[in-house]
């Protein structure tokens, strides 16, 4: 994993985060690329804009690693679409990623003195 490397660049960090978010969106059910992008954008109150240039390579990468599987189906608008589905391995990976992200976020919050975030964590 890119994150393991010491000199992991920001881009790769973000990629890792995108991967995590993609996995997270798939927890609620199978989806195709457009839906996934939409869910992430809406979910982040349109703060995060998912670039298609990263989304599709990310999906293919996740499929490669066996965290998601894909199949061809029909979209809600009756179009042929490639749906992605979270696998068991993907679910485990999501847990790992989430844990790591939480630690990271907590650590950053501590440094930044963001008490609220820590308090939320402690609940």
């Amino acid at each position, binding site marked *: 994993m890119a994150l393991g490397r010491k000199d992991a660049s920001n881009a790769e960090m973000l990629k890792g985060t995108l991967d995590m978010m993609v996995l997270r969106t798939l927890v609620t059910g199978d989806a195709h690329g457009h839906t996934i992008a939409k869910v992430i954008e809406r979910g982040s109150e349109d703060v995060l804009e998912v670039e298609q*240039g990263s989304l*599709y390579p990310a999906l293919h990468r996740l499929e490669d690693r066996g965290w998601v599987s894909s199949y061809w189906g029909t979209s809600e608008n009756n179009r042929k679409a490639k749906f992605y589905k979270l696998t068991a391995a993907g679910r485990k990976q999501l847990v790992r990623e989430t844990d790591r992200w939480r630690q990271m976020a907590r650590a950053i919050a501590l440094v930044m003195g963001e008490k609220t975030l820590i308090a939320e964590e402690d609940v």
Partner: protein
Amino acid sequence: MSWTRFFRRKRADAELAQEIDLYLAEEVQENIARGMSQEEARRQARVKLGSARRVHEELWRQNSMAALDNLWRDLRYAARTLRRSPGFTAIAVLVMALGIGANVALFTVVRSVLLNPLPYRDPGELYTLFERGGEDSPGQGRFMPVAGGSAAEWKKAATSAAEMAIVCPWQDYNVSSEGGLLPEKVDASWISANFFSTLGVAPALGRSFTAGDDDPKAEATVILSHTFWKRRYASDKGILGRKILLDARPYTVIGVMPASFNYSSSFSGNTTAVWTPVGHDAPPSLLKVFDDHAFLVVARLRPGVTLASLLGQLNAVQKQVKIDNPGSAVHEGVSGRSMLDDAVGNYRTSLYVLLTATGCVLLIACLNVASLLVARTATRSREHAIRAALGGSAMRLLRERLMESLLLSVLGGAAGMGLAWMAVEWLVRTRQDMNRIESVHIDGVVVLFAVATVVLCALFSGLISALSAGRGQILAALQQSGRTQSAGNAKAGLRRVLLVFEVGLTVMLLIGAGLLLKSYQRLRSTDLGVPTNTLTLSLSLPDGRYKTAVQQVSFFEQLIERVRAVPGVGAAGLVSRAPGQGWGGDHLMTVVEHPPLPKGVGLDIMVRGADPGYFSAVGIPLMKGRIFTADERLERDHYIVLSQSAAKLCFPDEDPIGKHLKGTDGGPFEVVGVVGDTRWNISEPIRPTLYWPIFGNGYSVATIVVRSPRDVEALAMPIQKIIGSMDPDLPVFAVRTLQETIGLSTVGSQFDSILVLAFAVIALVLAAAGLYGVLAYLVTQRTSEIGIRIALGAQREQVMRLMLVDGLQPALLGLGLGLGASAATVRLIRSMLYETRPFDPEVFLSVTAVLLVVAGAACVAPAWRASRLDPMNALRTE
């Protein structure tokens, strides 16, 4: 990133296109739902998506392996470049194929014959032991067969150092006709009971000999070779326990050897069809005497024993034997060599010389391809300079060039493997006389060797041309493309150096070929002493059926009478061994009328039995005295006809007629005549020979010699029918003309000389092509320079001379180099030469002449073209 992804990039790309289409469609729909117009919705969706191309590229890159990708691109690029010049490609591939094919074929033979271990258990521990003369005895005298008595002494003395077995591989038996099978004569070996166990092999069927079989009183037993069993008995397992008739005596078949078993030595090929126990079949005296050398000793060293220590021990034993038995035929020393050496040592020089020759051809082929690539590099130097200037990495350019030569080598290697396969088939067919030739085959190691050769060739020719590209001279290359007149000279310089080596190697090959060819011609033109259009047929009377001398002699007398009566027979005679057909036995003789020689010393003379008609039939001239008469037979068989050299040896300054000779165990014999000399082997010097009557003197083996004014070979069938009608159980063997005999004994020499000659011719053609290519290239490069020279008044002859000198320079340098290197190495092939000195001036001179003529011819055309240039046109080019 996975391999499957890499190879499915195209499909992934197509899928991605669909996904993107879907994304756009969904986005457009959403935008319309938000109240945008159709057009605006589409535009906004596109804006949001950004560049679809970029998404494609991102994914494509993610799915790529850079190295593999580059490799594939280089490969395609190289293939395209080569396809653009099919002539160059075809020549280069052909040249490589010849070089690689010849090398792989020869390597296959060298490996199978010389390098592979023998098919026995722990073959490294097995040695063949011989008797040897004094310390100073040369060549063959160091490895002579062993007397039965000596072998027994050795075995007794060295039980703790080695397991020893004896074998007598020169035997043969008449196998009687049975169950519709024809009678035939087969090669046989007498072996001690422990022979097979010493080698560590066991019969595939049945059992091996036991000490009980190896005894004069035992029941006769025999073990068959796999080939003989398969051929004569159609692999019938029921043969075990059955009796077959050998020399008209019944033998029980107790075993059949496995197909993989073979035994060959420096004295015998792998021709043994039946194995019999020596203790049962050999006369008991043969196993006890010290002066009749009938055996080879095979020894398996026990752990911790070395050959040197065993020989040290046995030498002491043999020295004592010599002291106790001081006869001249008793040897004083022991020698030994590994069984593998003994079996194939005779072919080592010749095979390695051939392998070296093929190596030279391959090297020349590589040099030629390198030279062609250098020429291409030179013509593309501008392209490369521009690419380098634009930032093309040096590695990239190097890789491209290597890829080109790799592609050529691989194509050449593939074609070469085909050639090698055919060549191996041919070699095996042609050299049936070579020991272990039946084990030659192409295996995994050979394929590995071929692959390694291909890679080496690719690196060699690729690197030479790549290095010639002259990195860091971008500016110079770009400037050169102007009207500079010495363009490309540096590159031609490298090609000239390559040419010098090429010509040098060619000269070495030519000299080797010349020497071998001369030696072969000497061999073929050697006079056997008699005309060679004579037919010979051999037969041997089994003493099981022809028990007395009278029976044998009367059979021979009747036979030759009936042969003479066959229509078409001009003359016929009987002899124990025809000229050129082998050793045939020798005796130590003394002259009765001379003062007695010291005990054990005598005149070594070859012995032949002959009938009165033999000399005129085979064409040996009578010099003095007379031939035998018809009644000098049986008891009256003590008459001798000497060959000229024997007469000179025994009676240097006397008239031999009427004098007497005595053998070690018989005589005296009266000398009645002197006849011309003959050779016992075409490649050996003449030896003194004596003849005595074959109708007597205990002969049961005879060769019929027949001469005819017409086609002599057509007489073979009628004569064999006569023999069949006299005794249907009697096989006839060695049916051939003396001409064929010579052909058989010179096949090795013929083979070596013709192959090396073929390689030399290939090398010569390649070198000539190289010379032509370089000079033609130079002329093109210097067109404008020559134009200026002519315009300024240079004579056309001058121009031609200038160019010729330019072209011939590398040829002359190479010639000098080749002659020097040959002088240093020719003595290595001395053992392959017959009556030809390694420094044969005739060969050296004619090679020089041939090379000069060929080099001149190769250079004349481009030089001529240069001298005919029209100065106006020449100056206008570029």
